[in-house]
């Protein structure tokens, strides 16, 4: 578990923890980098959109080993849950922009979806909860 504040300066610290964790679990280097990117983008979204760039709001990250039954085998993976206490997120806004537009912004959500097998947003009480899972086996996208 990591308890942070919403200061953008903490992003580097989290990146520095996530990539080695993914490495330790056996993810190949490219997937370690993409998981690092996904978590960084998710945190950036919380700082920007959930907390409106206020640097002193709480963010909690939980890291767990994930298991998923698939046929006769079990996939191992990494589950990361990011929690914040910002206003409820408008799910209609949780979409990236089309790639054919050459303009800044809107790429972070694409990166998250590209990197992770599961991207699940829920609101419980006053908490926004974003659950990201990546499995070690060949990626299977949860729709």
């Amino acid at each position, binding site marked *: 578990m990591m308890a942070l504040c919403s200061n*953008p*300066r903490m*992003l*580097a610290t989290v*990146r520095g923890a996530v990539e080695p964790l993914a490495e330790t679990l056996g993810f190949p280097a*490219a997937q370690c*980098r*993409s998981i*690092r*990117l996904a978590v*960084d*983008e998710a945190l*950036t979204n919380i*700082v*920007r959109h959930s907390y409106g760039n206020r640097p002193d709001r709480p963010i909690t990250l939980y890291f767990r080993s994930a298991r998923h039954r698939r046929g006769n085998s079990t996939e191992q993976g990494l589950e990361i849950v990011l929690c914040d206490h910002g206003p409820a997120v408008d799910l209609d806004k949780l979409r990236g922009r089309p*790639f054919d537009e*050459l*303009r*800044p*912004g809107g*790429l*972070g959500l*694409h*990166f998250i979806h*590209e990197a992770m097998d599961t991207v699940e947003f829920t609101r419980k009480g006053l908490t926004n909860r974003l659950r990201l899972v990546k499995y070690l086996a060949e990626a299977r996208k949860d729709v």
Partner: protein
Amino acid sequence: MQISVRRNHKTTIFDISGDIDFANSPEVRQSLLREIRESRVPRVVVNLSGVRYIDSSGVASLIEGLKASRDLGSRFILFGLSTAAREVLQLSRLLKVFEIYDSEEKALAP
């Protein structure tokens, strides 16, 4: 993250090192746009060989630099992309939008 600028009458080269993320991409954006608009040289080159990490806000800063250069009729060139930076531009479907070279020598070739 650090940015320095080399200039001559035809080219501006930005040397960027460190991670480009949401904490410092506004500085990258501001530096690129100010220099591009003030120098108005025909070629703007960004050296990313010292950049180990770039996020979507960093990519957005590069897009803004590209658009500002295009508006002034300048070329906007990247070189020295790390594996991580190349992967992010690939994910953004932007590898073919930017003019990208492996080395400074190739980026500065006529």
